[in-house]
């Protein structure tokens, strides 16, 4: 095998295989998967073209993508993908940038990554080159190889869509279904706030390796990434089982002893996301190291899972000490296996709120 490959020029074989091993691990493919990942990447005739659109954004997802480590961003940009339009890092501006977009989207295949929500109530709340987010979706969705909603805003509307949703913000799939006239839109949701760069890289590679998009759960998330709760993979879980809870911030029960954060607001038991397995920022940490999970991968968490520092809604747990996670799940009425199968997690959380808190669920958009 030569030291350098065509698609990965400048990368040693060793680094390349290390990268493939990492990807296979994220994708849950194991040892055999590594070879599949490697041969798919080597066989690719050209780097997949990626167009990244920013709608109603804070740009946190793009900044998180710049924290991607395997591959390094250098390898990502120079070797793995062709990031043809991304308005935070591209050199071109103004009409020159729009000309690049036109050429890419009218020519070859491209993957379309969206960051940010679609403004449907006040379309002019977001324009780029004079076009509203709705106009951009209408044009690019039908042309793209695949549409990937990066982060909770593109997936579900997120913070803009929180009560009272002043701009009518929606996720891509909800916009397409409700206003865009697409009955059954295909959008891969990669929620979390911000979206995690590793999720995007793993999803693009999955599509390249398998020739198809990954299986999605009821709220559009790839099951291979979002199949478990935070609680399932939490390093504080032993303390939860043993009934050792942080009662007050700042004392030794949190920082030094890592007791469970459930009582100070942890939403890990109701949140499906891979944070406990694939950590953040070069794998040095994740939220629950330093604070309770806020449930940012769940639809409508700003309304459904706040206040952040109050125990997850659903009332006090009878006999909390020593109960199992499954009993707690039932006690809370949260989405465990049955809820997930029947309605999807977000729906289960919303219906819990509707019935428990006696308040009507919010419907301005933002769900799915």
């Amino acid at each position, binding site marked *: 095998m030569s030291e350098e490959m065509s698609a990965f020029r400048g990368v040693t074989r060793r680094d390349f295989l290390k990268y493939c091993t990492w990807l296979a691990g994220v994708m849950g493919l194991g040892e055999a998967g590594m070879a599949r990942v490697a041969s798919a990447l080597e066989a690719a005739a050209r780097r997949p073209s990626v167009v990244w659109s920013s709608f109603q954004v804070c740009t946190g997802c793009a900044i998180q993508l710049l924290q991607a480590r395997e591959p*390094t961003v250098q390898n990502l940009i120079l070797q793995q993908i*062709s990031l043809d339009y991304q308005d935070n890092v591209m050199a*071109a501006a103004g009409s020159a940038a729009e000309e690049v977009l036109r050429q890419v989207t009218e020519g070859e295949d491209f993957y379309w990554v969206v960051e940010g929500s679609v403004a449907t109530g006040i379309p002019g709340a977001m324009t780029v*080159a004079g076009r509203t987010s709705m106009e951009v979706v209408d044009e690019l969705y039908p042309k793209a190889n695949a549409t990937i909603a990066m982060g909770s805003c593109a997936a579900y509307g997120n913070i803009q869509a929180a009560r009272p949703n002043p701009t009518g913000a929606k996720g891509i799939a909800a916009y397409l279904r409700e206003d865009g006239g697409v009955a059954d839109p295909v959008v891969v949701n990669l929620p979390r706030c911000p979206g995690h760069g590793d999720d995007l890289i793993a999803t693009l590679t999955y599509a390249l390796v398998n020739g198809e998009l990954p299986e999605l759960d009821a709220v559009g998330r790839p099951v291979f990434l979002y199949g478990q709760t935070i609680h399932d993979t939490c390093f504080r879980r032993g303390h939860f089982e043993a009934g050792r809870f942080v009662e007050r911030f700042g004392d030794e029960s949190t920082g030094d002893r890592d007791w469970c954060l459930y009582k100070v607001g942890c939403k890990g038991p109701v949140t499906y996301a891979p944070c406990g397995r694939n950590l953040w920022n070069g794998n040095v*940490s994740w*939220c629950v190291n330093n604070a309770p999970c806020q449930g940012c991968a769940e639809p409508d968490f700003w309304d459904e899972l*706040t206040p952040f*520092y109050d125990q997850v809604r659903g009332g006090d747990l009878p006999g909390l000490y020593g109960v199992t996670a499954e009993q707690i799940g039932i006690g809370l009425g949260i989405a465990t296996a049955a809820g997930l199968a029947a309605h999807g997690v977000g729906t289960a959380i919303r219906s819990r709120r509707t019935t428990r808190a006696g308040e009507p669920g919010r419907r301005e958009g933002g769900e799915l």
Partner: protein
Amino acid sequence: MPKVVIDPVTRIEGHLRVTCQVEDGQVVDAWNHATQFRGFEIIMRDRDPRDAWQFAQRICGVCPTPHAHTSVVATERAMGIERVPDNARIIRNMFEATHVGYDHILWFYLLNAFDYVNVPDALNASPTTPALQNLQSQLRAVVESGQLGPFAGHWWDHPGYLLEPDQNLELVSHYLQAIEIQQISNDAQARIGGRFPMVMSFIPGGMQERLEIEEIQYYIGAMERVKDFVDNVMVPDVLALAPVYIELAEQGQGVGNYLSWGLYDDASQEPANRVLPSGMILDRRITDVQQPDLNEVRMFTKHSWYADDAGQGRHPLDASQDPQYTELPPIEGETLPSGKYDWSTAARYGERNLPMEAGPLADMLVAYGSGREQVVSLVDQTLADIGAEGQPQVLMSNLGRIAARVLREKVNVDFAYQWAQELLDNYGNGDMQVYDAVDVPDSGEGAAGWSAPRGALAHYMRIEGGRIGAYAAVPPTNWNLSPRDDDDVRGPLEQTLIGVPVEDPERPLEILRTIHTFDP
């Protein structure tokens, strides 16, 4: 009289259009248009005040930490908390140090450098080191593949690019190193705060967690690597670029009023005593630093897409937050903006309704004018290095805005260790407290100011019935990218663009450069 519109302005956070009127090769009038609205202040009403900072940091995913920090302090003031435990003060400084560590590096290399560094020209270099040869071969592969990725379509043949091929290749390699270094700074932030962007561990009253020794050591190790890059790569790069692009010292003088709320609390937790102190400079009088008052800020909406405030400026908490979108003029044609043209409101200061420039230049000038020793020597040395000894006023320019960001980064990495040492000293003295619990009161009002990497940032909160009754954020955008106010006085960027030369209206590189000096 050509109209020049740049939309999108790329390499920034959020969405921006800039319209310029160009005559005889220079800009004669300008309008900036923030083209995004999300309605944070409306969304935050009637929620738990303790959650405010988590909402507020989503205002900007590039600078979430200063938003989180400023919002938490505003919440504390509204709750009646005047000071936090000393360890919380120090940990907050450590957060800011990692954040500045990343932010200015990101700006200088990823968001700004391509205005001066010509990527395709790097292929003409004759590198002698294996690393640069390897990089050049990777770049050549990208160019030959026909898929230029983020380098596609730019005005690379513009005559305004002045570096030699070897310099271009070298700076492209620093660009790639910069990606790695900003990650190291962010890793440290994540290590002490859970993740980045969107840190997790602030809380009104202090911090959720004390830092463990291992976390403090991680922070020190990361900041050492950042400091090494700043001292040996970033500062030399700006000193190498400055003489080549010295014409930038003649451009972009701006409005001449500078505002800083200050950065890095000392033990007194007083803004005027901060490492970079709060202060303002009016009419370019560097030696006459005055103390700004958060309650003297007024917001104007005549040219912004909000209900008019009856021709008067209002306190941020009382200003209109009621969206009333009209339209953007078409990019083509001669129509110039009039009436409402911006989602940003116009922030003005004091009785004279002054537009104020915010940002690292303001921070450095205020610190310089206040006689902060370390800043004075750093600025004087830099002026000498670029041949402008004893003339701090040359900093009031496009070149000065660039240099000030790099100097601010330098101050940051020099101070970063001090916080770790102070924390270890407190621990050594048995002081482990990071949090002081206070209940949310029924009513209250508070404000806080801070210098984010982009400049003066303030948050305001009113508590009513134990919930958020009103909330307002006044980030640097409301200063620097303010539209005209109710007296039709231009905002700082609009003012700064006037007089900027435009060699080719089809490729307005000089306009783009000027916009980027504000890190909009």
